């Protein structure tokens, strides 16, 4: 089906280099523009960008809550229909137009530069809070080098008569997360001051990121050999470890038990679409940038398909590993709960040990209830339900920092497993951050806001430094609430709008023949926080709405704002020549052509 509609786009052919020009450009740029050392680096970087924390702590939860094995059907269908085309689109425009996100949109139509700027802003804001999560991961990693692990038992109170009361009422893992790590305040208005240990971890995270991104893809290309491959190794180790633990199979069964009725539920499809979209890190501008460093003859369609498949398979693999460990934890909890109840019963009725076991527990319960109901009521036995334990806190930070850490404390050699697990999370997060930083640095270079002669190191250093400075807000007592805010509003709505604009721009303004993309219009609350233990819902104060507007509105509004700005400037400004002289031309071909008298065929006419 050929789309007949194509909006008028004057000067398009002058802005888009032809294939012959591209060949020439490739040879000339060989020294100046960064290039991938080999295809493997490019693939590993893209895989690392796409495979992130969401594959580990969002997908397994979605899979289990939307009918287990049945969720694979919408997920895989939307992977093919939504993920592959959008990925191919970004790779194609990057590779063909050989610029970062701002340059690419300027080439397609200068009025669309706003899309590139919006991508940059979103990359910046998402990078800010994403690296904070990495800082939390690093904090846990630093604390894993001791035995016993600090979250395995409650700390003792001052006079050593008992445990700290806050810890006793919840659990050691909850206490360590909410008190020792975050030191959360009750409400977002209560800032709670800066938590110096989190500031240190943030500093560590940002400097480590800067080291890896120091010279752009020159350094990240080397770093991804480790950060993109290590998670798979660790997942395999955990799989082997998990399968040898008691109860792991029940976890996997719980994950994959299909419930085909869920397919009739529209929210299943919406969640699958959203997961595919966010998982591919589309609309950040990073993928466009990465593919622009490729050779012109690279087969980007094949790359898109390969990366989509890898991303999908990684999600499923991670889900299996996670749920085997969750199954183990749930079984341990269930056994503890049952043993506790059995002990209570034995103590109350002075029965010899071994009389009540797991097998005759239920019959015994009934017998006792009928014979001595009064005493039975007094005992207040806990309800031990396996399903509850399996569905506790299984997404987001709750999964990583509460459920999984608890499971690790129950394994032998816990510090080793803890170190491995947090190294894996760190690598997953860091490789995504590479794309995020690229999504900010490349547009900055294209926009020519900062002096040209500044080396790449200064650009990356500046971005990391400014982000670190602003991310200090997440190191406050109320930092977790701010992070949830950013996660819900900075990363969700603007990305959908940008992706929509990308699609429309390429389809109607650039002119592609057919477009089969299915886009989910769901404004998805990609909230990382899980209600575990059950938190009170508090309403946001009014000034939060201003923050939300800044987070979501500004990137989205930048798109029409920039178009309007250019329109006004075109109408009002005096001469076109003054324009052209002012426009910095930094591509070699431009430099070669400007002094020539004949500028008929190969001129770049900025509009």
């Amino acid at each position, binding site marked *: 089906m050929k789309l007949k509609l194509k909006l008028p786009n004057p000067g398009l052919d002058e802005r888009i280099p032809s294939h012959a020009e591209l060949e020439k450009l490739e040879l000339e740029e060989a020294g100046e523009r960064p290039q991938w050392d080999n295809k493997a680096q490019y693939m590993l970087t893209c895989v690392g960008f796409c495979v992130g924390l969401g594959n580990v702590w969002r997908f397994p939860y979605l899979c289990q809550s939307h009918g287990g094995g049945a969720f694979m059907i919408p997920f895989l269908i939307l992977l093919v229909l939504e993920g592959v085309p959008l990925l191919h689109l970004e790779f194609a425009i990057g590779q063909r137009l050989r610029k970062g996100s701002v340059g690419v949109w300027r080439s397609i139509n200068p009025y669309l530069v706003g899309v590139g700027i919006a991508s940059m802003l979103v990359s910046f804001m998402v990078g800010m809070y994403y690296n904070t999560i990495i800082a939390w991961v*690093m*904090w846990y*990693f*630093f*604390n894993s*080098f*001791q035995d016993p692990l600090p979250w395995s038992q409650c*700390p*003792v109170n001052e006079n*050593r*008569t*008992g*445990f700290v009361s806050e810890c006793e009422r919840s659990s050691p893992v909850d206490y360590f997360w909410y008190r020792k790590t975050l030191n959360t305040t009750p409400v977002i208005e209560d800032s709670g001051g800066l938590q110096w*240990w989190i500031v*240190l*971890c943030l*500093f*560590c995270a940002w*400097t*480590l990121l*800067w*080291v890896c991104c*120091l*010279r752009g893809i020159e*350094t990240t290309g080397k770093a991804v050999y480790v950060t993109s491959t290590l998670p798979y190794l660790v997942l395999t180790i955990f799989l082997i470890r998990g399968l040898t633990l008691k109860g792991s199979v029940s976890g996997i069964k719980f994950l994959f038990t299909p419930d085909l009725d869920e397919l009739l539920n529209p929210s299943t499809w919406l969640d699958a679409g959203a997961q595919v979209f966010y998982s591919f890190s589309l609309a950040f501008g990073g993928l466009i940038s990465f593919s622009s460093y490729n050779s012109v003859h690279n087969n980007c369609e094949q790359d898109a398909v390969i990366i989509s498949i890898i991303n999908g398979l990684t999600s499923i693999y991670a889900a299996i590993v996670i749920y085997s460990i969750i199954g183990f934890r749930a079984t341990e909890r269930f056994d503890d709960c049952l043993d506790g109840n059995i*002990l209570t019963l*034995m*103590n109350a009725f*002075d*029965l*010899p*040990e*071994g009389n009540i076991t797991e097998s005759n527990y239920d019959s015994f319960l009934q017998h006792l209830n009928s014979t001595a109901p009064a005493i039975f009521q007094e005992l207040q036995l806990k309800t031990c339900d396996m399903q509850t334990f399996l569905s506790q806190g299984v997404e987001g930070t709750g999964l990583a920092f509460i459920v999984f850490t608890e499971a690790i404390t129950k394994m032998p050699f816990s510090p080793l497993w803890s170190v491995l697990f947090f190294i894996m999370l760190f690598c997953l997060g860091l490789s995504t951050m590479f794309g995020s930083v690229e999504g900010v640095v490349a547009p900055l270079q294209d926009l020519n806001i900062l002096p040209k002669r500044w*080396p790449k*190191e200064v650009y990356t250093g500046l971005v990391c430094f400014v982000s670190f400075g602003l991310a200090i807000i997440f190191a406050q007592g109320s930092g977790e609430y701010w992070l949830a805010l950013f996660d819900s509003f900075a990363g969700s709505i603007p990305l959908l709008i940008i992706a929509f604009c990308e699609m429309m721009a390429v389809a109607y303004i650039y002119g592609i023949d057919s477009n089969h993309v299915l886009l989910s219009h769901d404004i998805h609350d990609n909230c990382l926080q899980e209600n575990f233990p059950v938190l009170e819902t508090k309403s946001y104060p009014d000034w939060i709405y201003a923050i939300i507007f800044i987070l979501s509105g500004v990137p989205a509004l930048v798109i029409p704002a920039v178009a309007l700005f250019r329109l006004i400037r075109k109408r009002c400004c005096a001469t076109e020549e003054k324009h052209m002289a002012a426009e910095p031309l930094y591509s070699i071909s431009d430099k070669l052509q400007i002094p020539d008298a004949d500028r008929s065929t190969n001129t770049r006419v900025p509009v």
Partner: protein
Amino acid sequence: MLAGVLLLIFLPPLVAKDLCKDSQDGFKVRLSIKTALGDDAYEWNESEMFLFRSTLAYAMRKQTKQDTYNITNILVCNDTQRVSFVFVVTSPDDPDQLIPKEQIEEAVRQNKHRINNAFLLSDMTLEFVGIPPTLAAPIIYDTEPWLIVFGVVIGAVAVGIVALLMSTVSKKRRAKEKAAGLSEEDEGTVKENGTALSGLGGKEGVYNQTFSNDNRFTEL
């Protein structure tokens, strides 16, 4: 007479039982041997009870520093299948007087780990109802281990940054030197000879026809 004698014989144990059963100064003890030892669990019998009474007597001796405590001072009652019972401690000087609860609690607390070890049990499996176990002292580190790891990582990162920046600087310097060196070389050759030969770019020379075989001109 006989009745009186019989009474005298049977009174102490009866009195003892009353002392134990009705007393406020007694403690209930629970043992969970099977939970603790599994297959290696020993059976609870009179000898084990004897051991228990003697360890308690030992604890009392240690705590009060009086060597007069004997096994007869520890009275036990309410034996159940659970393996739980109640015990009281009588004063060595006066068998009818009971030692107050607080003193017994103190004695047990001080020597709990000795009592535990005698029975191969732990604080969880040998329970004195009403005497919570003293918790282990928290481990106090001179430097927190996380700070040490943090220091190592930051050190590595700093080394990495310095190394990469130095390599960039040295690369730029080498590039500059190379550019300067090349231009110098060109000037040198021109200056050196000052002849047309230099323009040939250092090749072997011009083919001088004077000394060549010019058969091609003279052959007929």
